[in-house]
């Protein structure tokens, strides 16, 4: 009996204890519910919708913290989040179209005249005219690290809505650099505040800026038309898995940079996935200091052994496009490359390489065919590509030793330490296709790590640098691309498909191939 009493007392005590603990929670829950109802009512009365946007692409680590377009890569943030706009923008086919500009013409090889649209105001209220734009470009040239060398500007003149750029030498690509995010036009009378906030002409203005978060609100006086009233918070989240869980839990409404592996979790009616192929290419440079790789047959054997479709369709979960060259294929274009391990083996055999000792690797003069593969883990696709290529080359008897290190820029200086370098690069950032060749594949290019040299390519680059006609420029760039692919100096594997994943009540959050424009006036939160 006493034992039963003890048990009953213990049960009552436990119940009371739990009840005491639960009571405040209940009250708290009621308070939360009330607060939510109040907030909802308040929202419905003010009609302001909110969106929290998580991205892996904002912050100090990406060199784009803040909104000042004249600092580092912060112009990307300024343009991406709808604060700043440029004179020209890149459309769905990465072609230049006027944006803040109404029209333009090259008066001569060194003079570009741009007419600015009428009726555009900065968020500060100041009217955008040629004088305001001139102040902005002069500051850009004075303080930015890349713009002066790209634009080669000698003088800028302003007269009403007419802005005239005079360059130090013929620069057909100048117009392309006016679409580069660093060319976003901001009000220099307001300037850049200590939080790196600016006043631009875009549909949104920032109400607070930090290195990890930007709070935006829609403008009432946007020049392209009304913008649905909303507040947006951009949060820097560097870990892809945190983004995944944030979107699943509802803490985030939209994301940029979800890991490929997470996409199946959002392929349902509750979410929207909008994708676009970009010009960010994953490609391999071969090291021409290695005697073996000077042989074109060996290079083609390697290229033909790489299973690009397997990499894109399985390892990237279909979130990419097979590459046919440095630039993404246009709609309807089919990949023109051959994946043939058998042909690769034949080429190796013809070059005297065969597996004489039966160890699975081809050898010659008693030495196995071994190559060192260098890459970096900063782009998560690259270590995956490394392991994929390692397996592909093993199939044809080549042993690949992988070195995936953040320190790759030091390693690459020692040409005996690597044979294949895999990297990622936006090949066409401004619609100026010459950029890729000038940067990576001409004899004197700064990022030509493998010392590739092709006199025909160098000559065509000279022609391109003085050609103003856009059709002829495209034609020449295509020829250069074909040379590079046919010579197997570079092996282009895939292009990144960028996706923005959001809850299904978010409409109009559509990525562009240039990767520049994310928040437009058409972004609606239902």
């Amino acid at each position: 009996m006493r034992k039963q009493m003890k048990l009953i007392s213990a049960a009552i005590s436990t119940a009371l204890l739990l009840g005491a603990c639960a009571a405040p929670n209940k009250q708290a829950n009621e308070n939360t519910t009330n607060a939510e109802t109040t907030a909802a009512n308040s929202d419905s009365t003010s009609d302001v919708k909110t969106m929290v946007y998580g991205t892996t692409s904002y912050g100090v680590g990406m060199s784009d913290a803040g909104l000042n377009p004249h600092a580092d890569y912060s112009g990307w943030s300024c343009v991406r989040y709808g604060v700043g706009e440029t004179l020209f923008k890149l459309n769905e086919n990465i072609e230049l179209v006027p944006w803040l500009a109404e029209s333009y013409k090259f008066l001569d090889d060194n003079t570009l005249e741009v007419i600015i649209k009428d009726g555009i105001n900065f968020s500060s209220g100041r009217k955008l005219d040629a004088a305001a734009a001139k102040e902005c470009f002069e500051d850009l040239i004075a303080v930015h690290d890349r713009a002066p060398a790209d634009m080669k500007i000698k003088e800028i003149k302003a007269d009403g809505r007419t802005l005239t750029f005079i360059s130090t030498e013929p620069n057909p690509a100048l117009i392309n650099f006016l679409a580069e995010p660093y060319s976003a036009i901001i009000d220099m009378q307001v300037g850049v505040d200590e939080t790196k906030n600016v006043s631009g002409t875009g549909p949104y203005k920032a109400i607070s800026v930090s290195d990890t978060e930007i709070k935006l609100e829609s403008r009432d006086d946007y020049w392209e038309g009304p913008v649905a009233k909303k507040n947006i918070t951009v949060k820097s989240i560097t870990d892809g898995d945190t983004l995944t869980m944030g979107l699943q839990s509802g803490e985030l409404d939209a994301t940029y940079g979800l890991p490929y592996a997470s996409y199946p979790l959002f392929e349902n009616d509750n979410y929207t996935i909008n994708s676009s192929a970009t010009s960010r290419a994953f490609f391999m440079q071969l090291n021409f200091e290695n005697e073996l790789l000077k042989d074109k047959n060996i290079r083609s054997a390697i290229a033909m052994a790489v299973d690009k479709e397997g990499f894109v369709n399985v390892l990237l979960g279909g979130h990419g496009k097979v590459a046919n060259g440095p630039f993404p294929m246009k709609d309807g274009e089919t990949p023109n490359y051959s994946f043939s391990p058998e042909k690769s083996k034949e080429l190796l055999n013809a070059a005297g390489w065969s597996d004489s000792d039966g160890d699975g690797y081809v050898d010659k003069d008693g030495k196995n065919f071994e190559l060192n593969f260098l890459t970096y883990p900063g782009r998560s696709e690259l270590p995956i590509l490394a392991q994929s290529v390692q397996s592909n080359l093993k199939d044809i008897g080549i042993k690949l030793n992988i070195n995936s290190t953040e320190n790759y820029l030091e390693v690459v200086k020692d040409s005996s330490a690597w044979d294949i370098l895999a990297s990622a690069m936006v090949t066409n950032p401004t619609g100026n296709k010459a950029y890729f060749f000038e940067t990576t594949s001409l004899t004197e290019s700064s990022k030509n790590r493998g010392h590739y040299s092709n006199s025909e390519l160098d000559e065509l680059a000279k022609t391109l640098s003085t050609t103003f006609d856009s059709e002829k420029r495209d034609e020449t760039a295509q020829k250069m691309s074909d040379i590079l692919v046919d010579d197997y100096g570079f092996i282009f594997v895939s292009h990144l498909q960028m996706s923005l994943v959001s809850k299904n009540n978010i409409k109009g959050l559509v990525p562009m191939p240039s990767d520049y424009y994310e928040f437009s006036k058409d972004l609606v939160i239902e």
Partner: protein
Amino acid sequence: MRTEKILIPSILVISLLLFAFLSPKLTPFDISEQNLMIAKNAPSLSHIMGTDIYGRDMFSRVIAAGRISVFSALAVVLLMSITGVIVGLFCGYLGGIADTVLMRVSDIFLAFPGLVLAIAAAGLFQNGMFGAIIALASVGWPRYARLARGLVLSTKTSTYINAARLSGSNTVQIVFTEILPNIIGQIAVTASLDIGTSLMELSALSFLGLGATPPTPEWGSMINEGRSLLQIAPWITLSPGVAIFITVSIFNIFGEALRDYYNI
């Protein structure tokens, strides 16, 4: 009775070490052979731990990773215990300025959380698994130095040490032939209990990309490789996780048994 208690843990540890040593020969599939057609397949009769994103057999990779994971942990413990014990023995026996300086250095090391310091050191070395082993050993030796020094201080005034000194033995002889055999039991118990911890710390470094890097199979880096797929293909993360759990448990059981055996 004491011997019986340690028998089963010893058999388990010896079996584990043998298994780890022979692991590359025991894999049913080639650990680097990719087959994208069967990528991310769930556990089945043909692949009992499923396959990873490259279609590689997880069971084979978990087994193959045993050698690098287990022997690297042993290397860490050996390195830090040998270094720490030598320092502790001489500091305790000789005393003086060297003792003061070395003990203050060890105080500095002990003032920081071990793993945090190891992450910094491994980042500095940037040399894969070898760098991770050196990093963990370089932050772990002071505990052994402290332990050995304390044991030496309690034994160096003993009669048998005085007798050895009077019979003409020099410092090195006294330290290694008289003192060390008397304290080795306690050191061995501490070391055996540290193997499991070292294995987890090495896995943590590899998980962070500071130890073994893919495609080398190592349990920590394998868990990291499958992290994004935890909700879609949990077996990629769970398989190496279970391997770590079992291995650490065996070493801990052995350490406890050894402690009971020495009555420490």
